[in-house]
């Protein structure tokens, strides 16, 4: 079971990343759960300064941008 978290305060970019990551994981046929983290004090625990950030299995794999679909798949499976 993969855990995918999106860190962001709820701006347009964060929602876009959420949808893109959800789609990527679906297309990969993974078993996963998605979570939105909106509490800024939680971001600190992950060491994230620039949102939106993508956290896969408690590891920050991207921050501050929306990776392309191919890149997302690669980041999620890694």
């Amino acid at each position, binding site marked *: 079971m993969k855990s995918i978290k999106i860190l*962001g*305060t*709820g*701006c*347009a*970019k964060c929602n876009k990343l959420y949808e893109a990551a959800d789609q990527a994981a679906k297309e990969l046929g993974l078993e996963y759960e998605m979570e939105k983290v909106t509490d*800024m*004090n939680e*971001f*600190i625990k*992950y*060491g*994230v*300064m*620039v*949102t939106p*950030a993508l956290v896969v299995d408690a590891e*920050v*794999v*991207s*921050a*501050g*941008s*929306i990776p392309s679909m191919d890149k997302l798949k690669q980041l999620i499976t890694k």
Partner: protein
Amino acid sequence: MIWKSEWKPLVWILSGFLIAFYLPVGISRFDNAIMEALHLVKWYAQEHVILCLVPAFFIAGAIAVFISQASVMKYLGPAANKVLAYGVSSVSGSVLAVCSCTVLPLFSGIYRMGAGIGPATAFLYSGPAINVLAIILTARVLGAPLGIARAVGAILFSIVIGLLMHFFFRKEEAAKKANMMASPEIEVKRPLWQNTIFFAMMIAILVFANWGKSDDEVGTWYQIYSMKWIITSAFALGLGFVLYLWFEIKLWKLLLVAVPVAILGVAFPEYPILSFAIGAVGLSVLTSTDKGESEEWFGQTWDFAKQILPLLLFGVLIAGLLLGRPGNEGLIPSQWVNWAVGGNSIWANLFASVVGAFMYFATLTEIPILQGLVGNGMGQGPALALLLSGPALSLPNMLVIRTVLGTKKTIVFVLLVIVMSTISGMIFGHFY
């Protein structure tokens, strides 16, 4: 009847009915205020949308896509040079704070993981005031001196506030243990000088297209004014080349846009706005139908437009209703405005700062509201004070800041913002 779930629609209907029942139609002040609101919206639509807001959205979109936030943040990380960190945090709002929702997370990041409370509060103060959209629209609507004063004031005083915050809380700062910052790899797609030229072209188009007519019909400024469309076209051509060379936009597509724009420009020289509008539509089509980063650029531009235009329209309507166009009155009598924030007394500046600090302004709506206030007799100094304290703080975001800084530091920060905004308002008001 299930009142538990039905009371809400009932309240809505009742209040709608009461408002309609007591609608002050026919009272001349109210009727006049409605007309003022409509006139003001029309004026914004005619004067500011095509030449100013549309290019500004493209620039803001490009900043969001082509400038890597992570590369700026490395100057504000835990290992950052302290002197450099103050400089970077005071100006980086112009590229980091394009979307107002990113300001607070960045602030808490700089505070907790990065360069500490000084640079973090400096960023929080200057960020919302110096984002590109805010500066462009301030200068356009409220005049260049106020636009420039807003940017310069925000940058200078943010450093003062940052240093003071650091000084007050230096003991706690020293005891704080540094957190690790996660820094995923940064992809560099294009050398910095190419990006610089790209942004310079777009900013030049914006500046020259909006070049104001000077009072005298002689001198360099008037020369530039009389040639502004030729200069703008030259930069537009330059932008076309940049897109072709470095952004992989096909030449035939660019020509498909450039040729009609040129034909319209030559055929209707008295309506340059027509060419400009077609050019903007063309650029939208080019970028939105492309693959990769150009499409992303348009996506961001579109997001900004979608997010900001309705807010601004609403803000302009409210400002027009309450305050009217410059020189006219809305619902609020001019004497009230004059009494509260007229002239340049310490009281007027302080009042403007305090109101600005607590009131919430949706992105950019501070500008039409301020325009209305200035038109009703607000002094230039208090106007600057409000512009500085307004976007940086509001009651809702004070509550968020409190969860990051704690109550004591938040109160000190709010007081500093009010004091500094008052002082900069008084200095500016003294000269203008």
